[in-house]
């Protein structure tokens, strides 16, 4: 059975305020790093899975991302997938 490596990136939707990101951006200024105009914090979920083919692996990961890893009310997600 082919093995796949995947990474799901979960980010707050642009319309949702990210106070933790704002606080981190303020800390960047205190560190002396200038010019950071936007900082948003998300999650990266790394997975390994076995599936018969890439299409099936993608189907499972899309289901997982949409129903568990991200909450579509407040978050968007994207998927990176490769066979290992």
């Amino acid at each position, binding site marked *: 059975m082919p093995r796949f490596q995947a990474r799901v990136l979960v980010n707050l939707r642009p319309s*949702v*305020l*990210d*106070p*933790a990101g704002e*606080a981190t951006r303020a800390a960047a200024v205190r560190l002396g790093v200038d010019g950071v105009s936007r900082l948003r914090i998300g999650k990266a979920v790394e997975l390994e899975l076995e599936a018969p083919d890439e299409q099936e692996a993608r189907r499972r990961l899309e289901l997982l991302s949409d129903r*568990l*890893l991200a*909450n579509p*009310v*407040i978050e968007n997600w994207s998927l990176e997938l490769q066979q290992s």
Partner: protein
Amino acid sequence: MSIGVVIFPGSNCDRDVRWATEGCLDLPTRFLWHEDQDLSGLDAVVLPGGFSYGDYLRCGAIARFAPVLQALVDFAAKGGRVLGICNGFQVLTELGLLPGALTRNQNLHFICEDAALAVASSRTPWLRHQSVGSEIVLPIAHGEGRYQCSEDTLKQLQDDDAIALRYCNNPNGSIADIAGITNASGNVLGLMPHPERACDPKIGGVDGQGFLRALIA
């Protein structure tokens, strides 16, 4: 006639709820373990506050898959009363019984204080004895209580008269000052404030009693 109080791993207000319903109000109450699926004999179910399953991933995201909640979806569809308090409200949104989501407080603080609340609707049993606009005080204690939803959802909530409670002084950045909402039919209520902590006059008022009485009224 009985009330069920769900215990998830990480719940921490379950005994407070039972103290309020059984100890203060003399309403028969039993605990429901998160793996239970038998809700027979219950008139109402309370999802208490706490940190279900450690609140890993997102608040309420993992609790959503608890066996007891699969049974609760049917229970709610048949008109059974469901009250989600704080983490319980977060679970109800993740489960899809209520719209929207609860996100990190705007000021990033865990807020633990008494909150003045305005009754926004008296349509449902939970607030039937209150007049719209009247003010009550309930404790809040949360880090992720900022209610968020799309503009379409907000309009739907308004059209359905489903906004139950609003903060008088919005502490967390919730959209439209929302502190609690019901579903369209009114049998499901989710709110961030803790009515069970306001049921004993000796320890902080009795403004929460009406919500718990409504479980069996």
